[in-house]
């Protein structure tokens, strides 16, 4: 009897935590469906409408916030950043996993230090530099600076995947007359494909969720959703329903992607420090 009560209490505690974790999301859905005149007059009873989404997603919205454009910008810079990091990071990760050479550990730790460096240390000089170079508020500028987020993640995690791979497979391929390049592309790379997929999605999510870089290094042309969602709160009359709708629209891509890579998250989140 006592055991049973304890089990129920434990499940109850768990449910309590999940109410705390999920309520804000549920409340945003409610807020986003409210018509403006019922925003503050009631809490849980109202006549739902999709008007907020129409305003937020409407290209020429009367609020003057080009949210669809921000959404496309987020997509372009996040995809671009992950693509560039993969092209540059995969060979580096492979080299660091397969050869012990002078400088490899230094490079790895420099990359890791990017992960922990306060972003503004680099952004403020970049802010000055970008103005001079004409990279301020451009896709290229954003993709470059987002490497701070995506490159360390991809190199560190892919090195851990390559290290787990037995080198004997590539040895065998070399003996069969493959070149080193072919062994990499036809043997090693296909074997770590699940890892590449998972780390790419995770890097995409982190790039998408980034806020400091677009806040300081863009103004309108290349601005992303994380900065854009704040703009409905400005002005003399904060628009709660539009803010909620914008927030929800901007979290949909990362949430959907996250649910597809659950299995690989542990290694990704810990930079390869914990495997499961």
């Amino acid at each position: 009897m006592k055991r049973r009560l304890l089990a129920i209490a434990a499940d109850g505690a768990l449910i309590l935590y999940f109410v705390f974790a999920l309520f804000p999301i549920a409340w945003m859905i409610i807020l986003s469906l409210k018509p403006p005149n019922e925003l503050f007059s009631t809490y849980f009873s109202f006549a739902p409408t999709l008007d907020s989404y129409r305003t937020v997603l409407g290209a020429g919205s009367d609020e003057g916030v080009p949210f669809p454009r921000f959404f496309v910008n987020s997509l372009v810079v996040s995809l671009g950043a992950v693509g560039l990091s993969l092209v540059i990071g995969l060979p580096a990760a492979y080299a660091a996993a397969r050869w012990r050479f002078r400088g490899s550990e230094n490079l790895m730790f420099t990359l890791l230090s990017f992960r922990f460096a306060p972003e503004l240390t680099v952004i403020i000089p970049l802010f000055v530099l970008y103005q001079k170079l004409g990279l301020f508020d451009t896709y290229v500028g954003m993709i470059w600076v987002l490497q701070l987020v995506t490159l360390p993640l991809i190199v560190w995690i892919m090195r851990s995947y390559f290290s787990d791979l037995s080198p004997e497979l590539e040895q065998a391929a070399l003996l069969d007359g493959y070149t080193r390049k072919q062994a990499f592309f036809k043997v090693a790379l296909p074997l770590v494909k699940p890892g590449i997929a998972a780390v790419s999605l995770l890097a995409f999510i982190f790039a998408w969720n980034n806020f400091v870089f677009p806040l300081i290094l863009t103004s309108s042309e290349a601005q992303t959703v994380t900065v854009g969602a704040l703009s409905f709160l400005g002005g003399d009359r904060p628009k709660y329903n539009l803010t909620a709708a914008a927030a929800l629209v901007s979290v949909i891509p990362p949430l959907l992607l996250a649910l597809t890579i659950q299995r690989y998250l542990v290694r990704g989140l810990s930079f390869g420090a914990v495997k499961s």
Partner: protein
Amino acid sequence: MSSSLTETDHGAASHGGSGPPARVVPRWRRGLRPYLLIVPALLLTGGILYPFGLGLYYTVFDFAASKPQPDMVGLANYRRIFGESSFWDSAWVTVLYAVGAAAFETVLGVAVALLLHRSTRVGRVLEKILILPLMIAPVIAAIMWKLMLQPSVGVVNYLLKPFGMGGVQWTDTPAGALLSSIAVDVWVYTPFVAILALAGLRSLPASPFEAAAVDGAGWWFTFRKLTLPMLWPYVLVAVIFRFMDSLKVFDIIYALTEGGPGDSTVVLQIRAYLEAIRFQRYSFGISYMIVLWAVVYLVTMVLVRYLGKIQNRAAEVPK
């Protein structure tokens, strides 16, 4: 399932030269190969280190929007920072935030992981959505909570009204603003600790627990003497990540309180933002960031060394 926590082993390192290559490649070119592979990464790293170096260089000038032709001022920026009470206030708020957030997240995250580890029917369903808050951009999370914590029309005060505390001025008092910011951090990042701790729990060996059960050890004894020590390396990874990240918190505070009320939640990155971007005193703002960067770097070194020691000790325990 691998028990290796550190990434120092290189698998079969130095195998690049062994085995007869199919096509004869000159030795010097083979030796060069790893370097060629990392050249792009090196270049890109240089592209990021360059602005950092440039920033460091700026700090010995008095470069600002109002002074486009700066003069060399030596270490005056740093002397000014350490002499100003606003720096020490910011540093104190930053430490409070980082310690508070990391501590709450660790306790709550480990508790959630332990509850989920029981794998009840409820737990298995909830585990699938554990990740959700962590994948929401912190700035968006802060916006969401800002709407909910609004004193007069926010839903939190509405829900608290039946309990006789409907008028809490959440983000409008200094202590409330700091606690609210920490609460948002806890909301976003508790799943991070829980996910890593749960992975740790699932990889613990079964035999010590079976032995303890045979000996009739109680739950608390098992937890304190077995679970916690064996789980600690995993939790420590999570704690290090959370503590380091909280030291450089920006998004959550920017969106939730903008550093207010007054200066009560101006953490170091917010202070640097205000100085460098809002007031356009570039050199002075960057100096703030160099100081924070140095602190973060030192703390990382100490914590990572401690982590290595813990992991080595854990690896020595026969499993």
